[in-house]
């Protein structure tokens, strides 16, 4: 894979940009037949999840 492409893929992965696509894969295998959330719903849900269960961060 060319390096720029690899960096772009890494950025997508680390920023969570492709989280929805991964969710669709997991969802279809764990809950086949049930309607998955759409992109907007998924990100709203994910964001709430992240900040309502605050882990921590360093100064």
């Amino acid at each position, binding site marked *: 894979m060319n390096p720029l492409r690899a960096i772009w893929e*890494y*950025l*997508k*992965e*680390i*920023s*969570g*940009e492709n*989280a*929805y696509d*991964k*969710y669709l894969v*997991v*969802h279809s295998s*764990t809950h086949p037949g049930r309607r998955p959330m759409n*992109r*907007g719903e*998924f*990100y*709203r849900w*994910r*964001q*709430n*999840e*992240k*900040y*309502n*269960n*605050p*882990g*921590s*961060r*360093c*100064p």
Partner: protein
Amino acid sequence: MGNSIRRYGVWVGIALVGAVCWGVLALSRGETVNAGWLLFAAIASYAIAYRFYARFIQKKVLETDDSRATPAERLNNGRDFEPMDRRVLFGHHFAAIAGAGPLVGPVLAAQMGFLPGTVWIIVGVILAGAVQDMTTLFFSMRRDGKTLGQMAREEIGPVGGVAALVAVLSIMVILLAVLALVVVLALAESPWGSFSIAMTLPIALLMGVYLRFLRPGRVLEVSIIGIGLLFLAIIGGGWIAESSPYADFWTFSPNQIVFALIAYGFIASVLPVWVLLAPRDYLSTFMKIGTIMLLAIGIMFTLPAIQMPKATPFAFNGEGPVFAGPLFPFVFITIACGALSGFHALVASGTTPKLIQKESQTRFIGYGAMLMESFVAIMALIAATTLDPGIYFAMNAPASVLGDTVQSASQAVNGFGFSVSPETLQTTANNVGEESIVGRTGGAPTLAVGMSAIFSGLIGGPALQAFWYHFAIMFEALFILTTVDAGTRVGRFMIQDMIGNVYRPFANPSWLPGNLISSALIVGAWGYFLYVGVNDPLGGINQLFPLFGIANQLLAAVALTVGTTILIKMGKLRYAWVTGLPLLWDASVTLTASWMKIFSPDPGLGFFAQRGAAQEALANGELYGTAQSADDVRQIITNSTVDGVLSILFALLIIIVLVDATRVWFGIIRGRKEPDLSEAPWEESRLDSEGQPVEEREPVGTGS
């Protein structure tokens, strides 16, 4: 055989490079030393530590087992539990542990010269900080991602658990106050800085709307737009600073910024996260990683010379203007992040362990990310020590000592035993586009001047130095404010949780009155310390920063105590020194510092001595120290009382945790107590080392 000789040959080579670099640093006399020696001493030491010591911890002490399924695999729910690629997880973990701490501490500690800070950052991270992060990560992972507080309660007992909780909440308050103080000191009287930081609010708002309504989840896209706008805001700040009516409008006094920050912190905590917090989080993460990479490249290419001496007289006489107290223990208190930071134990338990694919990766993620943070601290130290020491002290001594003019500052610096001409101070201020750089304490402006010198050596030359200075200020302020947002929120949840135990409705995080009251409590708490810090007649950062360091190291003591306890329970008593020795060191540093802060008869160092001296002065109708009025003296009395009581609280907490843990240790060693390990049961892993399910792996040798 030939192979292993070659392999070890490489390591012998690295060891030699490291030894030579260390030698040059230690033996340098008088003349300046190139920063390259420092950089390569650090890199060689990290490489050897990672290859040998971290491997020893992984193989012998923790005995990681890759055939054992991690919680991410067993409990995979596609949300908080999910096996994540180790490189991606490394990025997340690093972004969560590395904030403003590793940038501020080394800059302040540079008053003692470059060597004490360098040695502590490198040796500390190898033997203590990275060990704490790695072991905490591992133990939390073996317990399905339990938090530090839960582990303390289960492994030590309820007393240890409560102490950990109190430690976390109080460190949060002091931390937020100190960080906000750094921002205030960087932005006060600086129209350029104030304008560009203020612009991050509309930018974040725009990004929030974009992410929520226009293009949900397009994080990269919106971050690129946001960063572009951020650069425009910095350039715009330059225009504002040059055009007088706007410049006056955007010039704020420290107290105006204090109240703006307090209001902002409250609003950001009450609002839903998508409005401000989440978009700023993206912005600051990208800015952080980008700027750190740029700084590394800048130092490698420009290889600046270190101007600060190896050790200044302040390392021995304890009379430093930036913070009081002798080298031991105060260098080890001032530099926490980058060497040993208890705060990391909160990240390493709870979030990251739920995402690890394989047990052996705790070395790369826990130990490796901490080495990386240590490297950031080294770069901050380089940026600060490549400045002319005269400029460094003129920026970092309390404003009350330096006076208002470049002439008085120059004289004061001469009094410290360094020299800087008034003209140099004025030229430097002009170069970075500020009215004055005198008494700009807090570490951020110093680092920004150092960084701007390095960046402009790389791109743009002197013409762009003002831009780079404000770029650096923006970068620091941005992620400090993100920490203030996020930390206030964490504190708010903790308070809601605590009150929720007594009064039910509070436990529901979305109950509005509970939200408002808890937010007000946490903002009020850090706001108080912030206000007091900004208005402290003796200079706030030098009073508050040691408290922050002590609180942070207190948390490290809790984490290392938990680690030692678990090692003993695992039957690994002969390896208990791996966390036990750092614990012993950390406890002696923290307790000595607390002791001095509480009992020292020197009013410059001991809070209660200071209180006594100020009271005496007040009773005699005199002024105390740099106080300008009787009210100032009264304020000094109040401040030193509050700070002193906090020091006592922190010291007591450490002693309680240690005593409680010792009871558990001896119980187990003497066989009186069952070592009740609360690990999750063993289950076989069905993932290969790349995280792919074993069944789906393509058969080897099909050829394609």
